């Protein structure tokens, strides 16, 4: 659905069902240069099983007007502003990679608005490789290829998508290609610059789930476990064989982890 946030048009997918803020709301936040479509299966589940969903396109991403927010805290503030605009008092926040930092920052500074928090492919800090930063600064397609290569786990490069006939890395690359020029670099700079992760984790008051891909090259499993150790009330789920983009690589295992944690 389209919704105005701070005067700009924003988009949030609702899992194929009309949004209803009176139901338990789950807000999904995508990673760098991605958009709401990365949550297609998980969003549909929560929308059709007793809840309501906002799978957002961050500003400048997907169908939301730009420009992109320059920092993780700015993205977190925008997320809370979107919840205001959608008349959502309290919601579950689910974030992936950069989106996990956004969700965690929002939970740390707007604790009363977050019922439960789920962080996928997350770490206290996510330093970005210099080569990737440099290529993204030039809007070089190579940056997208590097992100696809390192983001998807080794196993995913053989394919075998749960959705029959879908070529995993091809779909990921095409989704990244849809981002407007400059968006990936904005996101990588914002992610690289975020140094408040440890303090934010300590300030999160709600129950938190940390979902770790055992073969994650971008936020390695030990960094995910370190993050869980900093959170006051954390549960950890490790998905074997999965890389950084576990929500696409292992959509059922990701959904099971979210469902078990978020559904009372």
């Amino acid at each position, binding site marked *: 659905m389209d919704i105005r946030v701070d005067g700009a048009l924003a988009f949030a997918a609702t899992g194929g069902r009309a949004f209803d803020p009176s139901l338990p709301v789950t807000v999904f936040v995508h990673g760098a240069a991605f958009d709401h479509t990365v949550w297609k*299966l998980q969003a549909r589940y929560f929308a059709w099983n007793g809840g309501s969903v906002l799978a957002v396109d961050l500003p400048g991403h997907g169908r939301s007007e730009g420009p992109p927010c320059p920092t993780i805290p700015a993205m977190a503030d925008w997320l809370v502003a979107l919840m205001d605009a959608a008349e959502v008092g309290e919601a579950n926040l689910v974030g992936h990679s950069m989106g996990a930092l956004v969700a965690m920052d929002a939970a740390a500074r707007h604790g009363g608005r977050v019922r439960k928090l789920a962080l996928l492919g997350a770490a206290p800090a996510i330093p970005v490789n210099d080569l990737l930063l440099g290529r993204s600064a030039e809007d070089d397609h190579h940056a997208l290829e590097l992100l696809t290569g390192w983001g998807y786990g080794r196993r995913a490069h053989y394919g*075998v998508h749960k*959705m*029959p*006939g*879908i*070529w995993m890395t091809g779909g990921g690359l*095409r*989704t990244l290609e849809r981002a407007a020029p400059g968006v990936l670099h904005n996101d990588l700079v914002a992610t690289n610059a975020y140094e408040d992760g440890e303090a934010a984790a300590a300030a999160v008051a709600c129950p938190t789930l940390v979902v770790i891909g055992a073969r994650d090259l971008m936020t390695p499993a030990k960094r995910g476990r370190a993050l869980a150790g900093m959170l006051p009330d954390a549960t950890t789920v490790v998905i074997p064989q999965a890389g950084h983009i576990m929500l696409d690589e292992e959509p059922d295992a990701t959904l099971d982890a979210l469902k078990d944690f978020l559904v009372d």
Partner: protein
Amino acid sequence: MADPLAFKRDTLSLHAGQKPDPTTGARAVPIYQTTSYVFDDTEQAASLFNLERAGHIYTRISNPTVAVLEERVAALEGGVGAVCTASGQAGLHLAVATLMDAGGHIVSSASIYGGSHNLFTHTLPRFGIETTFVHPRDTEGFRTAIRPETRLVFGETLGNPGLEIMDMPAVAAIAHEAGIPLMIDSTFATPCLCRPIEHGCDIVMHSATKFLGGHGVAIGGVIVDAGKFDWEASGKFPTLTEPYLGYHGIDFAEEFGPAAFIARARAEGLRDFGACMSPTNAFHILQGVESLPVRMARHVENARKIVAFLDGHDAVTWVSYPELPSHPDHERAKTLLPQGSGAIFCFGVKGGREAGRAFIEAVELLSHLANVGDAKSLVIHPASTTHQQMDAAALEAAGVGEDMVRLSIGLEDPEDLIADLERGLRAAARAAKGR
């Protein structure tokens, strides 16, 4: 592709879409010869039917063996996904039916497979879909032929049977300017010789019966979604951008992003039209795909030797092969088909129809039949077989002459093939003298 972990073409041909069978450890792709799949519980069943979880429900819609072939071809072509169909023709119909309704219009190259020409000319009009044909070398003609109701531009990498090579990037740009996708039948080229998506194509199709399978044992088709076309921006494709009541109001472009087309093709087209590929056929075709790069290299190598033999032969009036300087698309072939122009080509037999008939009846090693892309070499006379439903004007427009013989060069020793062709040409020469 500079993805640091991406496998290269020859590896994808063998491994994409498959992991050793989790139950048995089988290294080969098992034939999952089953119609249906047991649900874990009622909740999982409901989730599968509502696209909240992905998986197999019924083999008409998807099957584990077929899915391996789908992923493998999608990977080789550089797409986001694929759907396999009962035949190449079923794939073409599925693509058309996914994109348009009655009232739709197609702009197509005139030099296409006779079956596709027939579908466009005679069958689709019964369902309210019209086609305008354009000579594949008339690039601007594609622009002129596009109407407000046009929903697809269609062509072949290598035209049939004249091997015309349309200016794919230019035609793609014309289609995209009009908010329309370009679909390419790349059966003759395979992803080993040309990857149309890299040249602007939005949907690739194959008759997998041909080189992909490669051994003449299974009929099948496949359509690949490049995932690049912006259906929302076009505004001409409500099947992809508006709620579909046949699936709980799903908006495919909104929910599936770059995979919108292929998701709708499966969710609606396979479910309702039902022209699915059988698991056993997928298995047979997969055996061919595993050796595709090696076979295509040998197909091209043999074809070049046969072309060299025929070109300038006393009993041959002409040879049409894009790698010959005499071919009108010689320069374009260097750009679009740098690894070779395939193994299917035509030549003219001196003496016309009677000489052509004598040639075909005299050859022994080459098989006279209506197929191409087999490991065995094949020969046919298009005017009397694949294109026989066209009238004289349509034949001329399609570049099919009465003296034309089409060869599909296989993997035999080229010296044996040349000996067989020499036998046929001697018979043709005798027939020509006896006229």
